[in-house]
């Protein structure tokens, strides 16, 4: 608990240093002197890095960011245009060997991509899952493929599972599920949950004309569905 007290004290001093450094023109020599003393004290205790090191870190992240963009392009394309961030983290660190980067470093490197013209982007799904995807791998393109898959006769009746979508889209099942959920959120698909799991269907609710519930649209999707359903039963 003595160590804990020390830690707390050091942290208080560090915070004080931080707030003082952001204060305006405290260019009083005396104050600068005491600040330097504090920094030396903290360094010798070896607990916390002083403020100046953090400023230098910005360049580090820029370089890392470019390196990462170069590195991920091929693996992500090979994975169908999208790869989970955790997988990228493992791949990248494995490639680097001993100079491992932290998850925070990785995230920061990805977030810098917005400023550069790189062919990859970080993308966060509603569920919180983060992926790296190639910019050509647009949502609209994926929706079009999901939509056409969901309208095949089999899929109209039985729906599609994440594995079905994974197979068609050529990506990992977990990511395929994210795409399906995304499409559902946009109103393209609807769901059925059963003991067998999640299955997604083209959103039939869009097809039903509530003013004329008794009259299925003559050439609509619902009409097709009905013909298939009656044939199946």
């Amino acid at each position, binding site marked *: 608990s003595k160590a804990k007290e020390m830690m707390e004290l050091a942290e208080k001093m560090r915070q004080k240093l931080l707030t003082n450094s952001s204060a305006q023109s405290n260019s009083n020599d005396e104050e600068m002197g005491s600040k330097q003393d504090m920094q030396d004290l903290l360094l010798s205790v070896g607990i916390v890095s002083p403020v100046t090191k953090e400023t230098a870190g910005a360049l580090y992240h820029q370089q890392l960011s470019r390196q990462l963009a170069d590195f991920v392009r091929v693996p992500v394309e090979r994975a169908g245009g999208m790869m989970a961030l955790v997988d990228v983290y493992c791949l990248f660190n494995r490639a680097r060997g001993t100079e491992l980067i932290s998850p925070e470093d990785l995230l920061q490197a990805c977030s810098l991509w917005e400023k550069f013209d790189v062919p990859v982007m970080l993308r966060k799904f509603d569920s919180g899952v983060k992926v790296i995807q190639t910019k050509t791998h647009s949502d609209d393109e994926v929706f079009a493929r999901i939509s056409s898959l969901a309208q095949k006769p089999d899929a109209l009746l039985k729906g599609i599972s994440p594995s079905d979508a994974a197979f068609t889209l050529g990506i990992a099942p977990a990511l395929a599920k994210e795409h399906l959920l995304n499409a559902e959120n946009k109103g393209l698909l609807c769901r059925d949950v059963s003991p067998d799991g999640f299955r997604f269907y083209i959103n039939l609710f869009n097809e039903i004309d509530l003013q004329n519930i008794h009259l299925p649209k003559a050439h609509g999707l619902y009409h097709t569905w009905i013909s298939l359903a*009656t044939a199946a039963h």
Partner: protein
Amino acid sequence: CKFLLHSIPKVLTCLQPVRETREKQVQLWKELILDYCRSQKMYIISLEEDFPLFSNPKIERSLSYEAKEVFLAALVSEGRAEWIDKSHKKCLILWLRIQDWANYILDFVKENGLEVTTIEDIRSGIETHGTELAGIDRGVLMRALRLLEQKGKAVIFKGSSADDEGVKFSV
């Protein structure tokens, strides 16, 4: 309606999480429930008992309790249904609103020249065969008649037999 009842898609029975899709689903089920009750002349839905519309053996699917509650609650909000009990286990379906019933009865009475009749005759008399009135829920009928009474269009009175009441209409 027969198309939907013939093969209700599984997705219809699964409460949709996406708001817009859910709204359409609720709308659809409200219509289904009203249509079904009207055609089958049903007035009460009990959530804890089986209800043909809510189960489809063909697809081996039934509405969950939660789903039934959601759809019926939506009908209640719209004034097309009423909870009979506090615990919301039984629901009265007003596929015609009380006001609409009152109008229907007045029209019926005019068309058939029935100035004086009994409650039971309105519910099951020969003239009512094939009309919406056949088999009307007694409670609903009484409320409609009382509404007509308030408007001075009818008077409810005790009949000759102990358990029957009569109505005199002034059309």
